[in-house]
């Protein structure tokens, strides 16, 4: 059940291609549930208002309709929305979450129905205690309903792109004099390494002076090992400027438009 917790679901296709989906954590899921809960309560209040009008005619019938409506709202909300919106409820939409099959396939109706019906067990004894504990114990943060239905909740965040111009400034990049070496650098540097360099630049002002020097020295050494630029391009460059040049080379848009 447990083992290493992961924050992404990696799916390998038969074509040997891998793609990753970000898994949602308990907190975002709880927030999404809160939004949904407010909506369900709102709909229940609406139902009460409707029924109270009906009660003028027949209190007996009105109460019967009320029981039916509340039942349909509380049990139907998740099933109907997740089925017609492909794994999203209003709350999940707002927080950028989506229910998915854990193999990356389409959701089937039985999956949607079971994961929502098993909510009863997950909510025991109160406030999703069972579901929360199970979610913390499983690698992919699945509650009982997810485990039974073979589903996961993934995040589809819209992260704002880092503002490169601000990070890099309008400085001259001495690497530009060597386009063939720049091209080779782009080839050799993997996405993770590039990301480390970019994040270091973005956060440089939050670092302590000593730590900043050491960090950029380490990163610059790494990139010097990847590819050696001729001395005229690197002369007089501090480690930080070196990393900035690398990031500029890697991330600078190369195409027009």
């Amino acid at each position, binding site marked *: 059940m447990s083992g290493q917790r992961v924050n992404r679901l990696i*799916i390998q*296709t*038969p*074509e*040997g*291609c*891998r*793609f*990753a*989906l970000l898994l949602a954590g308990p907190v975002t899921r709880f927030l999404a549930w809160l939004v949904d809960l407010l909506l369900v309560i709102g709909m229940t209040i609406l139902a009460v208002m409707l029924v109270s009008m009906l009660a003028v005619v027949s*209190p*007996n*019938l*009105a*109460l*019967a309709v*009320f*029981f*039916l409506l*509340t*039942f349909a709202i509380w*049990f139907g909300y998740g099933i109907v929305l997740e089925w*017609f919106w492909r794994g999203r409820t209003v709350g999940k939409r707002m927080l950028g979450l989506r229910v998915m*099959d*854990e*193999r*990356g*396939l*389409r959701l*089937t*109706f*039985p*999956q949607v*129905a*079971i994961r929502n*019906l*098993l909510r*009863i*067990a997950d909510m025991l004894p109160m406030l999703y205690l069972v579901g929360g504990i199970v979610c913390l114990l499983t690698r992919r943060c699945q509650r*009982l309903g997810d*485990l*039974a*239905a*073979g589903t996961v909740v993934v995040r589809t965040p819209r992260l704002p792109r880092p503002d490169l111009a601000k990070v890099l400034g309008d400085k001259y990049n001495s690497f530009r004099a060597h386009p063939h070496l720049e*091209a080779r650098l*782009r*080839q050799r*540097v*993997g*996405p993770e*390494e*590039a*990301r480390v360099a970019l994040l270091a630049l973005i956060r440089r002002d939050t670092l302590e002076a000593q730590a900043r020097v050491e960090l950029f020295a380490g990163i610059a050494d790494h990139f010097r090992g990847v590819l050696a630029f001729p001395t005229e391009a690197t002369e007089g460059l501090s480690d930080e400027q070196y990393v900035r040049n690398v990031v500029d080379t*890697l*991330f600078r848009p*190369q*195409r027009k438009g």
Partner: protein
Amino acid sequence: MIIDLDRFIERERPMWDELEYVLDRLELPSGRKRLDLAQAKRLHYLYERAAAGLARIQTFSSDPEVREHLESLVARAYALIHSTGRERKRRFNPFEWFVGTFPRTFRRHWRAFALSSAILAAGAVFGAAAVWFDPDSRHVLMPWGHADMRPSERVAQEEAGAGAGKEMKTAFSTMLMTNNIKVSILAMTLGATWAVGTMVLLFHNGAILGAVMLDYIRDGQSEFLAAWLLPHGSVEIPAILIAGQAGLVLGAALIGRGDRKPLKVRLREILPSLVTLIFGVAVLLVWAGILEAFLSQYHAPVVPYSLKIAFGSVQLVLLAAFLALSGRRGARRKELAA
């Protein structure tokens, strides 16, 4: 290795755009048009091409947008191509489902149903024995104020038409119905406790039933009891048993004794059965609720007991026949088609 990323993207982009266009169309809820062979082949080609492009571009650090876009395209196409569309081929037909799929699913898991019935029966025997040997236990076992009154007094009161809440009959039946459906869902859900919870729930309900029944019989009110319980109980009790059956099926899949398949596969296999059983139970309980509203709550002077008992018995036989026989022809047709 891609030498010139710009040229690569320029060359591949039309294919990606075409793939996106096809996916957009196929993913529309109304757009589940069938592809002809050439279109299907083209879709597969585009998908493989995009996947290959993704595999190559993944090692590149620049252009994260292109990579993300390509990843999402491949993920969507993967889901579309690798999901088996068998169940979606035909439109869902509720009638066919209820008279065909539901009884067939019930029969496929008949052992779980037998066990579910045995547990309820054991509970009933226990409840009856408890009330027989220790009359004080009725206060623990009996619900809804049954314990406060002798059955004969209650019968007299009901026959006089003075029972509680006569004018709110429909509301009361609806509440019972939704409550029964909730209990049924819980019985299935508790299968997640390796079916221990389901068994406890079934035994407890059996104990209540046994205690109430013995109480009435000992007080000489068997006829009233049969007339009161049979019309809706002949549907309601089987419905609870089927919900228990679903819970036991879930528990059995979790335990997986004598099954070499991995847990995930076992769960995936029983998922449609669970949904069919629990929705079937809901349909039965709605019917029981209607009966309860319009028949069970009316007693002797209004509706003769013999009529109610006859109705309930016939209904029980019909229900048994339905579950045992309905949908057999459909199964054979499916076998032939397969």
